[in-house]
């Protein structure tokens, strides 16, 4: 009973597929297949990955890695704030069960660095990443990024009612019709709250609370809630994953508004933990998720913006240069997370 169990697909289930694994390795191309670290990673057996990437997207990525290298990924998907809680809480109790950590709260990496919990590692090709995706200490790398937008249900919101600015959501006509994610769970909302506080002060959130906003947890839930028709519009929708893929389906009653006064732009760094129990597998995995192939897939099928400079974006994605991006400094996020959560609870009740 005292043994802990891995939450990943078991190797026994995949054994009959060994030829397929081999095919995958060959298909992945020479460099990665002959990677000298592969035997080490195989010996380590698996990589434990904590990520806030949308669940379906994460599962697809894991399947690709497992097929390519035959190394298991134990994936734990939850909200950014809960990832930090679980990883640090477990580590404090002496449990080392995290190799690669990816959250959408850049403040976390300031915090983890300060605690000495991040390993130094420069992934292959990282020198070509844009500055915003790089880390001076070579510990945390911007893996992916996404705008926070206003999802709305096209059957309930149309024409002149479509919100053009964040302040539009303060109109009393939105009472009981909005949904947003919780900063105690979703890291990107912490960034969003600070970004809009910079523009309008806390008064913005105090007034928004008067519209009795439905509170959900994940940054992907507002999109789903709006799609189901339960609420007309979302205050915080991650513009990738489900919101992007559902929007692409013909006839889906969902669209996304990019507010004119600025779009909070969320970076999701990836880092290897200093206490990683599977360091070689962790490095292999980190390189893998930063390859052009994988980054291109993330861009094409999930609508994610990525670090790799050679990736091209689908025609229906806005160019980043055309967006008025609101970016918050990681140090400020790290310093203000507690304050943000506390004030949010005071204003919104839970």
């Amino acid at each position, binding site marked *: *009973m*005292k*043994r*802990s*169990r*891995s*939450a*990943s*697909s*078991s190797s026994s289930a995949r054994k009959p597929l060994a030829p397929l694994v081999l095919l995958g390795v060959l298909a992945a191309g020479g460099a990665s297949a002959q990677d000298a670290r592969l035997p080490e990673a195989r010996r380590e057996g698996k990589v*434990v990955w*904590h990520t806030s990437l*949308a*669940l*379906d997207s994460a*599962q697809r990525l*894991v*399947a690709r890695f497992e097929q390519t290298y035959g190394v298991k*990924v*134990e*994936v*734990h*998907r*939850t*909200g950014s*704030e*809960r990832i*930090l*809680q*679980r990883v640090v*809480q*477990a580590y*404090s*109790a*002496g*449990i080392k*069960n995290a190799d690669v950590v990816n959250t959408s709260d850049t403040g976390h990496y300031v915090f983890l660095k300060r605690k000495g919990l991040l390993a130094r590692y420069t992934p292959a090709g990282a020198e070509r990443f844009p500055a915003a995706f790089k880390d001076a200490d070579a510990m945390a790398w911007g893996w992916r990024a996404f705008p926070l937008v206003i999802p709305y249900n096209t059957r309930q919101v149309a024409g002149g009612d479509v919100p053009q600015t964040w302040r539009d959501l303060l109109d009393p006509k939105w009472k009981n019709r909005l949904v947003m994610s*919780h900063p*105690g*769970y979703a890291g990107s909302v912490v960034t969003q709250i600070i970004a809009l506080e910079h523009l309008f002060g806390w008064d913005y959130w105090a007034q928004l609370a008067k519209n009795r*906003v*439905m*509170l*959900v*947890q*994940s940054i*992907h*839930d507002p999109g*789903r*809630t709006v*799609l*189901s*028709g*339960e609420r007309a519009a979302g205050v915080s929708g991650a513009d990738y994953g489900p919101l992007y893929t559902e929007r692409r389906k013909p006839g889906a009653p969902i669209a996304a508004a990019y507010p004119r006064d600025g779009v909070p732009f969320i970076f999701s760094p990836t880092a290897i933990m200093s206490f990683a129990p599977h360091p070689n597998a962790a490095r292999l995995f980190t390189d893998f998720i930063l390859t052009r192939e994988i980054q291109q897939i993330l861009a094409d099928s999930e609508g994610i913006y990525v670090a790799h400079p050679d990736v091209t974006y689908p025609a229906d994605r806005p160019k980043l240069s055309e967006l008025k991006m609101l970016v918050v400094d990681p140090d400020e996020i790290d310093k203000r997370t*507690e304050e943000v*959560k506390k004030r949010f*609870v*005071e204003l919104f*009740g*839970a």
Partner: protein
Amino acid sequence: MPSTFDRSVPVWIITAVTLVLLMILPLGWLGWVSISSEQGTTLANYVHVFSDPHLQKALWNTIVLAFWVGLASLAVGVPMAWLTGRTDLPGKRVIRALILASFVTPPFLGAFAWVMLAGPNAGLLNKIYRGVTGSDEPLMNIFTMPGLIFVVALYSFPYVYIMIVNTLELIASDLEEAGAILGASRFRVALTITLPLALPAIISGFILAVLQALALFGSPAILALPAGFHTITTQIWSFFQYPPKVEQAAAFSIPLLLATALLLQLQKRLLGRRGYAGVGGKTGARRPIPLGYWRWPALAAVFAVLACTIALPYAILTKAAFAKAWAQPLSWDNVTLANFHFTFFEYSATRDAIINTLELGIVTATVGAIMAALLAYVTNRRLVPGHQALGFLALAPVVIPGVVLAVGLFIAYTKPPLVLYGTLAILFVAYLTKELPVGYAQADTTFKGVHPELEEAGRILGAGRLRVLREITAPLARSGIIATWCFVFIGVIRELSASIILFTPATKVISVVIFDLKEEGQFAAISVLGLFMLAMTFATVLLMQTVLGRDFIGAKD
């Protein structure tokens, strides 16, 4: 059997060690941490949690919720118990089976289902209501306090029902008939004779329902948090957000613990006072009261309630499991098996959660049933001095709400010498502690039913105690022990309120995975796993009914 060895010694040592590990250590740590700070002993944590207006509101919400759930459970449970226990209402067997099903349905699944049924805009019932009436307003909004009370009461009223139905079994018809002969109407008899006789059971059913509502985590987390309010349990859970405020969580747990203990003490007093003539023996035959033309309206009312607890939620869960979009009508192009494929084959957390849950369920049920049986045997046969205390201790954990137990276990077992956190063992300890009272009560009933004279006959004929145990007692008690096993197993596989605090990413169970999926609003996968959980539960119930030859909520036909 001459022996120099006092056999009570090992019994007491084992019991004491178990008790320390299961209860005293966690509760002791809980109390200690609640008065600790970096500066030493302090009452500051209590001052903080009781002066913070936000936390005061959580306390008040819990009181409101528990009180109204208690009343609503009475309003539903009492008439239903009377109708099925005392009258000639048709379809009693079906009704009892459905109440049994409500009893074993995990309340958090009910809450999920009711989000899909009565979410103010996308909820199916509200859509139908709007379509029929043309109204802009919803029929009901589940994300409110009344909505929460409604859903919690749906799965708490069976406690009232079972309590009362069992008491009504014991009330002879003579008194009621005397009333009827003296000219009282059926309902006057019910109100002035049956009701007072059943009053202790009614109040104690009320207390049980209140206790359910106090300790519940899942339903408030699903229905109250979106509406922007907390209850004590959800608040304790959110104290664990980073950075964890364990001291405050501990301080906030103590009032919940005390309230539970007080209410149970009250209930025990009420039930212990059996000074009511006519209750307690099977002095006369029971004749069902004819309902006349009220039969059909009464039956309709009963089925309306059961539709809310069983038919509607199960239907919407099934629909969501097979639908591409749960909020859209189930037309042919909306039907899919992809949700099952995703849940069982793509989502990698599922498989291990199922294995963990089954492993914990089987181990806890086995250890729990053995412990409960041994304790019940020892106390019933008075094998050791102080056997009454053993029985009391086995029942004691019933006062600890799951969340509170979890906070205590978390504090006790995240530090040396016994670091169980991060392993399945800490969940095993939590489940065993939580389920021991239920298991003991069931095993106790079993051994009360095996009369000592059979064992004595064996002893007189020369068999030793062990041989008697093996050849006489064990076969007679077997079905009762299997039922105990099933009880514990059902309790374990649906457990959420302790698991949600004690799990780590590597030790997830099904209920926790369902809760994780809820964070992303993955209703389809939740429904698939929910149906799977229900299937496991009902398979166990069927097993239990087969070995017992009857259902376990009393009432023999």
